[in-house]
């Protein structure tokens, strides 16, 4: 995926300025940067939820997104939330993914009946249930304890194997085990050293 000289402003506030990067179609990319540096904006542009003011993004296929907020449908159970994106011919996938994130017993509960960490895991399962070529995970470990973080990171990595996985995080060490490409975003100024595919973020 090629991001070419992308600029994005909101009401005169330039969030990304002439930002360029290459993201491998097959592998893990970790995007880091301080709060407000434009990481989420970048992922929204990649997902096609917004258009850049200038520049272009050469994106391939469908994109699945785990938003920074859980964004679960409140009137659907955990299972229904995941199954809604899995497709009719993939009904078993929702149950399998919920089991993988340790929520098999809570599958029939509504989001309001789940803790923050449980809701996050449902959202992770939902993002993984969608068949896509690119997976964007924005702060996937938010609200998870260290043990769950490990399990979730390994599940995300294995489920998206052979696809493009983009993780936005303040804690890049969670994904160090999968030797990611690192991209540092800082208001549009890309750190040249960080874009090298050496696992350093």
């Amino acid at each position, binding site marked *: 995926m090629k991001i070419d000289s992308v600029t994005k402003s909101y009401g005169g506030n330039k969030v990304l300025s002439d930002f360029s990067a290459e993201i491998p179609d097959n592998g893990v990319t970790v995007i880091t940067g301080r709060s407000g540096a434009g990481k989420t904006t970048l992922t929204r542009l990649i997902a096609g*939820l917004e258009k850049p003011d200038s520049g272009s993004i050469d994106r391939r296929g*469908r994109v*699945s997104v785990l*938003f920074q*907020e859980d964004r679960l*449908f409140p009137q*659907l159970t955990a299972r229904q939330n995941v199954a*809604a*994106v899995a497709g009719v011919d993939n009904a078993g996938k929702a149950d399998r993914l919920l089991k993988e994130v340790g929520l098999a017993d809570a599958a029939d509960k509504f989001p309001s009946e789940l803790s923050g960490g449980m809701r996050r895991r449902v959202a992770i399962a939902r993002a993984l249930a969608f068949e896509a070529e690119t997976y964007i995970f924005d702060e996937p470990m938010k609200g998870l304890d260290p043990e769950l973080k490990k399990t979730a990171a390994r599940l995300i990595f294995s489920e998206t194997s052979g696809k493009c996985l983009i993780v936005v995080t303040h804690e890049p060490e969670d994904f160090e085990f999968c030797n990611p490409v690192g991209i540092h975003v800082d208001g549009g100024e890309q750190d040249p050293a960080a874009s090298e595919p050496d696992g350093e973020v």
Partner: protein
Amino acid sequence: MKRALKKICIAVFVAAFWITAWYLIALRVDQELLVSTPASVGRVLWELVGQGDFWGSVGMSLLRVCEGFAAGVAAGTTVAAASFLFRPAGHLIRPLLTVVKATPVASFIVLALVWIQTDNVPVFISFLMVVPIVWANVLQGLRSVPQELAEVCRVFEFGSLKTLRVLYVPSVKPYFSAALSTSVGLAWKAGIAAEVLCRPEFSIGGAIWRAKITLETADVFAWTAVVVVLSLILEELLGAALKKWGGRSA
């Protein structure tokens, strides 16, 4: 069980209190022509329920109001959806519905008598009462749909029907239910008022009008009691249906 019994006791006490108050007023006025006693109204009611015409009038009045109500709900929802999807349509329709809301129902009944067949006037009036309420509530519901969930539907490529089922229907449901609860009583009262003025065959309103011109005050009271009881039954039935529908479901 204990709670239900307490509720019944309170209801009986309240009813007894007001019937006693009514009885005392009737005694004080001491003119059946002005205020009938509860006993004479009860007698008339007892006679009425034994007559086939009574049930015919009740059935036909209910049918007319339900027709107008259903048509009003359908039209109000459609216009709200159109106003939401096409802003210019919303701008065009707003003043019209504001005028309908502000105009006295009697004016519309008189105008409708000129415009349409007598039998259809109560249907039309009930319809008119419902449309602005349903329109305003459903439009507010549509505007309150969480945009972050709309984005989820876009990302996961939900089609129109799935987006409607998963996002729009649940978001609009509370507003829609509130509109139905508010408008059913209004449609019923306005429909009966229209019947009083246009007097279609087999109608509660027509019976009230006939009782009035023959100075049968007890009959007016009895028919009014029928209107009140039916209004309560309609509201209860609708409330129960909405409660059932309001349960969480996909």
